[in-house]
Each structure stands twice: as structure tokens, then as C-alpha cells.
């Protein structure tokens, strides 16, 4: 089948898509956006998290056909050209990246949290990120980054 959707503000089209194919596969293998990562392919780690119509989803669990005519936003679409999103900038500043494999999914998840809840408490941050595994950082600096990004977005830093 053919799947037509919008990704990071641009229209995308994938041909010969098999019904069982995941959105993650379509993004990575067919539309040249390998930023979203595959670490489990069964919805348990969050590395593949993308926005689907403004809601974060595990793209490994979304069938390609489900995105027909819908909007997808991936890690590649978070920055505004050269300008990193505050969440990205704060990840750098806090030292929240080690190997970087979990990072694309965590960024989308953290971005969404701050959009929904401009002043998240610590437990709220931990809860919001509790679907994203990171094996490297112990989360400490990721929490620092999210706290600061929230403060920046709320205009209090």
C-alpha cells in the first residue's frame, strides 16, 4: 500500500508498504529519518517515541497504515533550523546524554511533558519519563535538564 502523511512539517509518501510494517520502520527505512531508535520493538523502552498528531506514541507499535493523512513529528523535527529546542539545549547543558540511543525518544517525551505541564514537579517528571529506559545516565541529569527546560519555557529562568 501507499502511505501519505506529514512528517516534521513536510509531506512524505511511502510506497509498497506492507500492512504489518511499523511507523518506526517507515520512518527509518523509507523516509530517511533514522533519528528515532529501535531498542525493543515491542513498546517497552520508549526509544522510538514520536508525536502522532501531538500525542507521543511508541512508533514501533503504530502500524504504518494508521498514520495516513496524519501529522508525525520526530526528534529531527524538534529544533527550529539551527536553533535547538530548549529541551535539547538543556540536555547539553545538564550533561544528560551519554550514548544517545535513548535520547531521541526521551526528548520527545520530555518536550510533551513541558507542553502539557509547564511547571512539573519532580514526581511528575519522573512519572512522565517512566516509559523511557536509559541504561547510561541513571536519569539524574535528564531530570536536571527537564527541570531547567520547563523553567525556560515557563519564562522563569
Amino acid at each position, binding site marked *: 500500500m501507499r502511505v501519505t502523511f506529514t512528517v516534521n512539517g513536510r509531506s512524505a509518501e511511502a510506497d509498497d508498504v506492507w500492512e504489518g510494517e511499523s511507523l518506526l520502520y517507515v520512518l*527509518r*527505512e523509507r523516509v530517511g529519518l533514522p533519528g528515532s531508535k529501535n531498542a525493543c520493538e515491542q513498546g517497552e523502552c520508549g526509544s522510538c517515541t514520536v508525536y502522532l498528531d501531538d500525542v507521543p506514541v511508541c512508533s514501533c507499535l503504530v502500524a504504518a497504515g494508521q498514520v495516513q493523512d496524519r501529522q508525525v513529528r520526530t526528534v529531527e523535527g524538534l529544533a527550529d533550523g539551527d536553533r535547538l529546542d530548549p529541551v535539547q539545549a538543556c540536555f547539553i547543558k545538564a550533561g544528560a546524554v551519554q*550514548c*544517545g540511543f535513548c535520547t531521541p525518544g526521551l526528548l520527545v517525551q520530555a518536550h510533551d511533558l513541558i507542553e502539557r505541564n509547564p511547571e512539573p514537579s519532580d514526581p511528575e517528571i519522573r512519572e512522565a519519563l517512566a516509559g523511557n529506559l536509559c541504561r*547510561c545516565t541513571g536519569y539524574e541529569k535528564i531530570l536536571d535538564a527537564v527541570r531547567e527546560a520547563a523553567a525556560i519555557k515557563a519564562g522563569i529562568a
Partner: protein
Amino acid sequence: MNDKLVGQPLVRKEDPRLLRGDGRYLDDLGRGALAAAFVRSPVAHARITGIDVDEALDVEGLVAIYTHEDLPGRIAEPLPLLIPHPDLTHPRTPYCLANGEVNHVGEAVVMVVATDRYLAEDVAERIRVTYEDLPPVVGIDQARAGERLVHEDAPGNVAARSVQTNGKGEAHEAIASAPHRLALDLHIERSASMPMEGKGVLAHWDADDRTLRVHSSTQTSTSVRLAVAAKLELPPDRVEVITPDVGGGFGVKIVHPWPEEILVPWAAMTLGRDVKWVEDRREHFTSSAHERAQQQHVEVGFDEAGRLLGLSVEIWHDNGAYVPYGIIVPIVTSTQLLGPYKVGAYRVEFTSLYTNTVIVTPYRGAGRPQGVFAMERTMDAIAEYLGMDRLAVREANLIQPEEMPYDQGLVFQDGRPLIYDSGDYPTMLRMIRDLVGWDGFEAERAAAAAEGRRIGIGIGAYVEGTGMGPYEGAHVKVETTGEVVVSTGLTTQGQGHYTSLAQIAADVLGVGVGDVTVITGDTRRFKYAVGTFASRAIVTSGNAVAIAAAKVAEKAKRIAAAALGDGVAPEDLELVDGRVRRRADPATAIDLRTVAVLSNPLRYAFDEETKAATQFAAATATGEEPGLEATGYYMPERSTYAAGAHGVVVETDPETADIRILRYCVVHDCGVVVNPRIVEGQVHGGVAQGIGGALYERIVYDDAGQLVNASYMDFLIPFATEVPHIQTAHMVTASGLNPLGLKGAGEAGVIPTSAVVASAIEDAEGLAVRRMPISPSELYELRKARQARKEQVSA
């Protein structure tokens, strides 16, 4: 003068790329390559009686199916034994594809190549392998019993038996004649590195050039190259191995060559097409590597003050079905068990045992968490027995700073003597005492108890051999653009080497960290290296970078002196702010990039800049090899020993037996710190893995040898909701063994975590914790057992 960059918590140069989704990991490469998938054994121990591919042959997109019978030459032989050892008397390594027998669930039996991975999996699903079951050996008890055998020719399932003594008397005699004696039986269960990115290999064969290019998600590209060359019988210079961005390693990716690292390149050569294999999560669980599982029997003799007079430890180590990585893990346990303590007469014996399970190779900590668990449980048991403060027992046994260097009288995993080079353990213990609030804890406990809450405190310390040899190297080059390019053969898996190694080079060459580009893990750029494991990268490669950069700086001074003329001598010059200038007269200077141009005497000019290097232009230094570049190697004479102490406060729920960490504190000494931000991140990540190992993570095999929790849903890696805030404090006792004074930091955080959490639970509950990890239900069972004992006594 530039402020020194070494020691500054700089942000990482590699982050912007990774944050934009522009990192390039193995699976992001090779679009359009053929995909490989594997048929793996569904049973733990069996003879293969047949492989039927008929049903698979009509799947569209099938390219090739390979079994052991199809493999030529050395590829059909077992994989190499990477680290031979005289005590490893019965080494067995796997075949690339099973040769008539399988020894664990997940062992590769058939390789399929198809046009994409979905199709390759479809093919694999239709291949029928028939097995004749053999009795599986699962767990240490069954392996020790020796009634069933994993390998018929390895009696008692024993791969190796090894004894070390520290030359300070006969341990059993010392224990027998000591005023007090105790014995402990301890158990640690299986866990695994479990990086977020699994393994993966992509191979490209250039038939015109007769060159093989392999990308692998490995911790050692140079070694993979030599292994692939040996197996495929190619000259090493015809093999290039490149490590792209790697999504974590933690030890599992130091093992090599994996069957897939041989088979995928061979298939690419055979088929003349690019071939790629990317491990899926289930494959990673059942066919990569695990660690930790040990049983230990400790006997200790001590005096009234809690001083150890004799210590004897017996270890039974589950090494899984094969031992490609030798017996490094139990060697590390046996030697690093001693920690910061003097123990009197010490004897340690380990038996490394085969089981029908996934192989066991180093996972961050690499045997140390088990050793520290044994030692620290022993310390607590002594304190309990003598009614002493647990910290006081430890203090009574500490090696003092004035005793450094301290020879433990053993042989370490690098084959060199276990000599602690430096450290201040009493200060370390004082710091953790303050940080965790040891002295005020009884008041805290009472306050909690008044609210019906149960809390406990635990403490523990370790020493970690880091920065082992044989060597690491680096090539440093100043480009004519002024860019400094540092190439090192070791790989990087998230440790921030693009930044920390740049800091070291930038300091020596007087440039900014932004001027330095670091290249890792690419054998096209640097061929000689060992790898990134065992907390060795910054020590070995860091010093190699400094050595190479210093050679470049000297050369720059000689060339600049010739160019400046006027009696300027190289010794008069210094490298500052991207210039080579006269110390006495900084205005007399030449740009480093211009020196790079002059370093390559030219026949031909290409632009204004290169004109300066042509024959009729100004003086260039004579007798120099062209290029402002140099190669340097650092070869440590032995490991350098980092150390740390952790403290933790836990709360245990009186009803549900839920275990919660209230406070986690770390004091850490890794010598001179290159980048504190990076080191802190390493410590945090290690502690998180340690907490996983203490409370959540265990690999579970059933009696049939089935791995029953092979997913992230069932193997419980901590999320952000499980890892507490971690307080860290640093101390610096520089290593005298290397020019920069560095010690490694990569594994530190994970090492004592199980030990200190056990200590705190014991303290909260007043019952002995002898087995880790511990779940709420296990704690509940311990409580019940104690209750039953009490009732028995009163009955």
C-alpha cells in the same frame, strides 16, 4: 596562558549531533543492504538431528540459507579463546553456527539472508530444525553436582579451577587460631549489561580492491579486525573495521568476534552484496552475554577489634555454555574482593562452571560487585558478632595512606601484581560517613520509628583496578586549517571521549577544545588499539593523546623557530591560543596553522598560504618529516587503582516489604579528573545499574534452561521512577603511574551497590541478607522464616 581545560566540566562536543537525531548507529547505516536473520536454538541442550529448509525456499526475497555444513575453512572451526589461562584446563568456545549440538537457548543454528529483515524472519520461521534433547544443566547447584554434563569432555562441568594466596601465611591456620570465626554463604544472581542498542554488523566487500569493510557495534574495532582477518584468512590490511556511534556497551560488546561478526562479512564476500544484521532485543537476551551469577563460601578469623587475621573464600562461578572470554570475571572477583582492606592470610579458590545458558563475560564491574558483596557482608557479620559499629570494623582494617603503594600479594587480571598505587581510604570513609549522615542516623531511625516507619543505613567501600595495558595509542595532527585531529583506536560508547580526549590534546597544543576533532574506533585512521573496557580508556588513551600531542608541540616549536629566525630557539617558544610564540616576547609569534603549512615543504603552491612552504620562500626547518603530526603510545606497567565508598539509607515497608531508597551517597576517587561532568554521569549511570542489580534485575532460567524473562517488560531495568537522587563527592589522589595522574571511572558506580543496599536492608530489618538481588517478596519470605524460627525457639 590558556586556562587548563583538563579538570573543567565542559559540555560535550558530541551532544548537538546526538540530540538532533543525527547520531549514526549501526542500524542507521547500510540502507538497501541485504538483511540477515538467524534460526536459534529453542532448547537448552540437544543434538541437532535435522535441518529442513524446503518450506522456506519459496519465500520471495530469499537470497541464501547457511548452516554449519556450508562454512568453509577456519569459519567452520570454533571461535577463538580470547584470553587463555593456565588454570583454564577445559576451555570450550562456540561455533559460528552450531555444529551438531546446541548448548543454550538462543545459540545460532542457521543463518538466513534476504532482501529485508521482515522477509529474512519469514524464511527463518519456515526452517524446521529437529533436536534430540539432552539433559540441561541449569544453575550452579546442578553444575556443581556434575551428574549432567554440558560438555561430555569437561568432567564435573569444570572449565577452570584456580587458587590464589597472598603470601601472608596459611589462611585456614590463621582462621583456626583466630579469637573469633565466622562463616557465610552468599549468592548473587545473573544479570546482564543490556545496552539500549544491541549488537549489529554491516559488511561491504569491495571485489575490485579485495577489501572488506565491516561496521560493528563493538567495544573493540581493532580486535574485531584481527579476528575477522584470521577467520576469513585475509591479510589484516585488507580488512577495515569501523565503529559508528554505539548505543552503550557495558562490557557485552567487548566480546568478539561474535558469530555474526564473522558470518555477516563472510556472506557479504560470498554474495558480493552488502549484508547487515542487527540484533533484536530478544536475541540480545538469549544470545549475547550475561554476568554476575556466583555462589560464595566465606570463612573469616578475626580479633576483638574486628581485625581480619585470616580469610578464605571459595567461589563457584557460572560461566554459561562457553568461555570465549576466559576466566577474567572470577579472577577479578577473587582479587578485587579485598577492597581497601588488609586481611591477614588470604586464600581464594574459584571453580568456573559450565551451564546450558548464555555465556558469561564482563558486565560493568566485571566480577567486582560480587567480590565487594562478599567482603562487605563479612564486615557487617563481624560487626554484628562483636557488637561493634559497622564503620569501626571497616576502619580497623583499612590500608593507611602511608602504606602506599600497597602490595596485596596477588596477581590481577592484567597478569601483573595487584599493587595499589595510591589512595586515602580513611579520608574516603570519613567523607562517606558525613555525606550519608552515619553519626546522626540513630536519631533519624528513632524519628522514623515513631511514625511507624522502618529505615536502615548501609555503607561499603571498594578498590577498582583500572587503566590496564597492554597499551593504547593516538595520532595527533594539526591540519593547515588549524583544526587538530586526534585519532585513537579505541572505541566509544557514550563515555564522552570526543570531549575528554579533546581537552587533553587542547591543553598540550594551546588550542581551544572546539579546534579539536576526535576520531575513535576506525581502523582506517588508527590500527593499533586494545579497546574500551575495564575502565581503561581515559587512562590509556588519554595519556597516549598527551604523549602524541607533546611530540607535535615539540615539532611545532622546531619548525616555528626556523621560520621565526633571528636566533629564536625551540626552547624559547610556547604554544598558546593557537599560536607558537616567544615566551619572552609574545608578539613574536606564528600561527599554529601556518606552522602546519610549513611542516610540509612544497614544490607547488596552491594558494597564498601554501606559497610560504615553497622552495624559494622563507626558511623551513630541515631534517623534519613532513606533516605537523605524531603518533604516541602509552603502555602502563600495571593497573592503577581507583576507589570509592557508598552509603545508602533505605526504608522497608513493614506490611508490604517494599524496599525504597531514601538517600544514596557516593564518594569517588579516580585520580585527576579530566571532565567532572562526564565522570559524574558515569557514576550516576553505574549506581543506577547497581540499584537494578540490587533490587530488580535478574535473568531467570527455568529448569529446562528457558530464559523466561527475555524482555524489558520482565527484566526490570530501573526507570526514572526507581533511581533516587544520587549525591556525589570527589576526592583526588593522583596516580603516580601515568603522566596525567589519571585513574579510570567507568565502572565505579556499580561496584558496591548491592553490598550497601544489602547492608541497609539488614540494618532496617535485623535479619541477615545473604542473597542479591532482593525483591519485596523475598524480603517477606525472610521475615516469615525468622518468625518461624522464633516460634520454634519459644515452643
